[in-house]
């Protein structure tokens, strides 16, 4: 298990403990998704707003006054050569890395830089890491069941029974991620791509506002890649998605020639526009082919 996940996890839990102590009224429910912490306000239609973010690791500028805005329900693809700062950006959004300067807001009211990872998670930002982590020996159905938002307490878990709506919800997600026929299979027996989907499904089950997807089609067959693209497209509108990807074919499928693509380079936005536009952009060409 990856240490960074570990960190995030415990941090999240500490936060929950505080919650439990603080909100006596919350009672057993203190382990639910803590939306009541501070509801983001999307009145202005902006889901995520990064402003002049700079991060430097001992001298090397990973992010250089990066500014970026993602609308509610928007799907944004982010491309760029290695070392362009894509992952660092994700780290900043999820609170894993603190920027040296700049602002990052979730909705119009939540300053991400003042929240810790778990708070960010509970505010509605979910991140999918490259390596799929699912519960190998549980069935697909059970994987989702555990991800479904509800009371996380031990007592509750002991006597929990799925309600009709919850089952339907799971069924929905299963259908969404093309795993309905696999519902009863052990997750460990799924193909790599299916695991990716399952994990995405698990994220969806947590009903995030913003999904950060780090190279979601890494190691997928073309056919799987296509279906993943379809899946993401169905999510557009319901959630905001930020997809970091190298695979141009995939990006093309997602953007369908009209959605915005952002090109990162040396820690700042090099170009923005449709895939066609940015691909014809000379600077971009230099960046990709020049060296």
């Amino acid at each position, binding site marked *: *298990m*990856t240490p960074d*996940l*570990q960190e*995030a*996890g*415990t941090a*999240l*839990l500490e936060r*929950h403990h505080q919650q439990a102590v603080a909100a006596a009224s919350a009672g057993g429910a203190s*382990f*639910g*998704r803590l939306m009541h912490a501070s509801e983001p306000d999307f009145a202005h239609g902006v889901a995520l707003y990064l402003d002049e973010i700079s991060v430097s690791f001992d001298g090397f500028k990973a992010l250089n006054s990066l500014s970026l805005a993602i609308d509610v329900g928007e799907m944004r693809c982010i491309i760029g050569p290695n070392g362009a700062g894509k992952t660092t950006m994700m780290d900043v959004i999820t609170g894993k890395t603190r920027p040296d300067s700049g602002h990052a807001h979730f909705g119009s009211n939540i300053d991400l830089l003042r929240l810790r990872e778990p708070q960010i*998670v*509970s505010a509605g930002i979910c991140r999918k890491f490259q390596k799929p*982590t*699912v*519960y*190998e*020996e*549980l*069935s697909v*159905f*059970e*994987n989702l*069941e*555990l*991800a479904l938002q509800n009371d*996380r*307490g*031990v007592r509750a*878990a*002991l*006597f*929990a029974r799925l309600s*009709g709506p919850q*089952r*339907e919800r*799971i*069924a*929905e997600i*299963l*259908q969404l991620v093309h795993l*309905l026929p696999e*519902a*009863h*299979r*052990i997750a460990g*027996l799924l193909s790599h791509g299916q695991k990716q989907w399952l994990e995405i499904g*698990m994220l969806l089950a*947590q009903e995030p506002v913003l999904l950060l997807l780090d190279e979601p089609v890494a190691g997928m067959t073309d056919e799987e890649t296509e279906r993943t693209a379809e899946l993401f497209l169905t999510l557009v509108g319901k959630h905001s998605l930020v997809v970091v990807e190298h695979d141009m074919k995939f990006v093309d499928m997602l953007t369908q020639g009209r959605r915005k693509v952002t090109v990162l380079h040396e820690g700042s936005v090099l170009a923005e526009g449709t895939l066609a536009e940015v691909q014809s952009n000379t600077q971009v060409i230099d960046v990709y082919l020049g060296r």
Partner: protein
Amino acid sequence: MTPAAPVQLLPESRRGLLLGVRGWSAVIGVLAVIAVLIPLLNLAVPAGNPLHLGDYGVALVAKIMCYAICALAMDLIWGYTGILSLGHGLYFALGGYAMGMYLMRQIGHDGNYRSDLPDFMVFLDWKAMPWTWAGSASFVFQMILVVAVPAVVSGVFGWFAFRSRIKGVYFSIITQALTFAGMLLFFRNETGFGGNNGFTDFKRILGISIAAPSTRMVLFVLTGLTLVAFYLLARAIVNSKYGRVLQAIRDAESRVMFTGYDPLKYKLSIWVLSAVMCGIAGALYVPQVGIINPSEMSPAASIEMAIWAAVGGRGTLVGPIVGAFFVNGAKSWFTQAFPEFWLYFLGALFIAVTLFLPRGIMGIKDRLKKEKGVEVKA
């Protein structure tokens, strides 16, 4: 999509009844064997009769059933939660000692020295009971201790260990350190629990002679019922969402944390439960084998528990029980049939199982099923 879809989604195997019809009939069958057949064979059938079941057999099965409870407990934490304890002998012994203390008091004045104090205290020139023996005369109180002491010890230890996220081998090793320390502590005569000799030569329980066939049979049946009860409890647990969280922790603890569950609470609760199960097993064990002493806390004893579970099959509930019976049955037979060589058999058995049956005896069937890609967990 059709509203029907979700309904058929229910994994029947995990929902509804605890057991299917066949399962229940099996359990009832077992209950009948334990509570009716064996008592009859042992008590009603005359000794000469080939059908007669000797006290030795009864005692042996009773002992193994106690072990089976431990194996079940090990399975819950190791097989399902992925925490290997090499120190559950400690909890087994603690339960045993709690029971033993009561039995020592029951000896009353029939000891060597006709004293209120147990004989070993008289040896050591003690004039009064140490505080640890305060409630030892009361059956109820000691039975509470049988549960409470393992619960508290495991609770405290577990809370610290899980909170500081000690994992895998590290955890196993310090559980071993703990039980080893416990063993040394109980070996000390000053500790006040009979030192190396521990407790023995029990006379009666609840005023009834402990050697009487009827008493032995009652204890036997009690043990059997406890085993079945724990089996059903364990089954209920792994079938619940709680049980699935445990398995999730085993497979990807970080993800569990990241989806908002608190592994600490889950691990701790199952850890304490398993400790208590061992404690109760110990309490049932002592009056039937007639002795409790610190060697029950030796690291080797705890490792054997793990081995029962492994041989039978981790991650299945029947497996550990099978394992306990298989290993100990084999041991009892070998130690008489080949006193010089039995360790070879036992050693070879462990090696073979880990190499060829990673899922233990139950794994043989499971493997066949797995090839069909069918869900295999029990």
